[in-house]
């Protein structure tokens, strides 16, 4: 299977500060990948490097095999990008935004765009600046989807949306995925939303990749070990201890299991995605 997005040692430096460092990952084609991490983790930087908005300071990023920075004519028509806060031209009407899409993109599906706008209950004559946050996000998504991209990249698309708008946005997104031939990468710092839709996970913190892989594997490989207060050395010899917490009488370990956990001292339970991610974020 090819990688929709592949990075090797990707890094970006602003002055003396590395916003992203030694980032290597591969998002398989056809997956819906979640890029999670706290604010300032480098998510936006990573996505901007991927779509060619910024040049890397180290390493490279390839989309469908090409570099967006060096071969924009090959990459840009194949991707859809919605930046943070879903920018639109506020003085443009929705009709004019669609016209912009048509003028600037050779593979523009005008019928799809109009059909989506109609289904959203929006009038083409409305100015983009007068739309609500949820509506703007949907219009921005429409612009990206009408390009018929192979890869859709969304930077915190639901940050400013209320729960209903979030659900509708994700529903629209999944509908597009169901039609086939689309890989999605979306970044967020809210994990609960992503659990429903994503099948690939990348955890980013402090400018570095902490964890990456298929969601199913991630969840099945991690375990929570609880037992009487003690040290984790024996466990650590076989499995990767991600996080350990000690209270007065109890020790809790978050472990990435290397096979079955045979130690009778520990009670082994599965771990939810949110707790796994928090475990990785906490260990920086």
């Amino acid at each position, binding site marked *: 299977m090819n990688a929709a997005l592949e990075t090797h040692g990707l890094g970006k430096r602003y002055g003396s500060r590395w916003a992203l460092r030694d980032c290597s990952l591969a998002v398989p084609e056809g997956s819906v990948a979640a890029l999670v991490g706290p604010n300032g983790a480098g998510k936006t930087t990573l996505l*901007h490097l991927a*779509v*060619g*908005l*910024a040049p890397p300071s180290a390493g490279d990023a390839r989309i469908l095999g090409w570099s967006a920075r060096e071969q*924009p*004519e090959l990459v*840009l*028509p194949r*991707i859809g*990008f919605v*930046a*943070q806060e879903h*920018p*639109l*031209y*506020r*003085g*443009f009407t929705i009709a*004019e935004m669609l*016209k*912009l*899409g048509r*003028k*600037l*993109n*050779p*593979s523009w599906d005008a019928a799809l765009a109009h059909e989506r706008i109609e289904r959203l209950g929006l009038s083409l004559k409305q100015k983009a600046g007068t739309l609500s946050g949820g509506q703007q996000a949907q219009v*921005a998504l429409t*612009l990206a989807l009408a*390009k018929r991209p192979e890869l859709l990249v969304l930077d915190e698309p639901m940050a400013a949306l209320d729960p209903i708008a979030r659900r509708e946005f994700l529903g629209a997104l999944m509908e597009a995925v169901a039609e086939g031939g689309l890989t999605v990468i979306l970044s967020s710092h809210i994990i609960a939303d992503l659990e429903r839709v994503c099948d690939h996970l990348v955890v980013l913190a402090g400018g570095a990749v902490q964890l990456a892989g298929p969601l199913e594997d991630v969840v099945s490989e991690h375990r929570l070990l609880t037992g009487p207060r003690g040290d984790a050395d024996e466990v650590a010899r076989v499995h990767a201890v991600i996080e350990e917490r000690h209270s007065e009488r109890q020790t809790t370990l978050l472990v990435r299991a290397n096979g079955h956990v045979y130690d009778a001292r520990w009670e082994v339970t599965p771990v939810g995605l949110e707790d796994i991610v928090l475990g990785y974020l906490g260990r920086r």
Partner: protein
Amino acid sequence: MLWVGWRQQRTEALIVASVIALLAALMIPTGIHLANVYDHDGVAACVTSESESCNTVLMVFQDRFHGLTSLFNWLQLLPGMLGALLAAPLVLELEQRTYRLAWTQSITRRRWLATKLALLGGAAIVAAALLTVLISWWRGPVDEIEGRFSENAFSFEGIVPYAYMLFAAALALAAGVVIRRAAPAFAIALIGFFAARIVVTNSLRPHFMDPVVKLLNKPPSGSLHDAWVLSGPSLVDRHGNPPARALVYQCLGPGAHVAGQAKQVPIECLSKLGLVTRVEYHPASRFWTFQWIEAGLFVGVSAALVAFAAWWILKRVN
């Protein structure tokens, strides 16, 4: 992309067009009136004559429209404002960070920039053309009398207005690209435009070529009426120095000043004392040479500013 670029520029272009239209609405009636008076009150015939009565006619004419012609002083900043305004959409793209949308469609950053710059340049040239045609037409009669080198003529006619407007746009663009705020960029461009115009007009333009220096036996006739007189006519002795006061009092009476009164001094008295009139000027025929030099100056700087802005946008905007 042409449609997109135009649509983004539409508001500013309409504002500029409205300002010019307003100006035209104000100037066309007065311009027609001015031309009428010039043609029918015998002013036209008097321009090349040297008779006293004609001098009076000309002075009366100039006086009558002085109020209007002096308004041109206020128009000097207009090309600066309009040019800087036209650059606003490009700067707003950076301020509002909508470039994240524009540069991830299917068009390359280079082509996007080239189109936007072409539209900006085109709009500036069209606006400058409209202004130049309007003002040149209006000033026709006045220019016959005063020449096209006068400050309120030179800056509004020929080709320099195009260069001024391009310069203002380029300055606003360069400032805007660095600070990424449209309003401060506009202010910086306006101030820069004002400063540059003042420096060029007062310190550089007089020296584009060496001025012609003439020593005349009598005060200059009307033949210099359309030249750009830098100094004089003043009284000097045969060596070019200002005359001793005692000499002057002989002709003019005690307590008289030297400069500016060459016209009233009896000619016989002048030549008896060995005094001549000195004039330093650029003849009217140099108008177009000076236009090309000044336009070239501003266009050259504009090109450098645009190149800088383009480099910044292509390489440094993250």
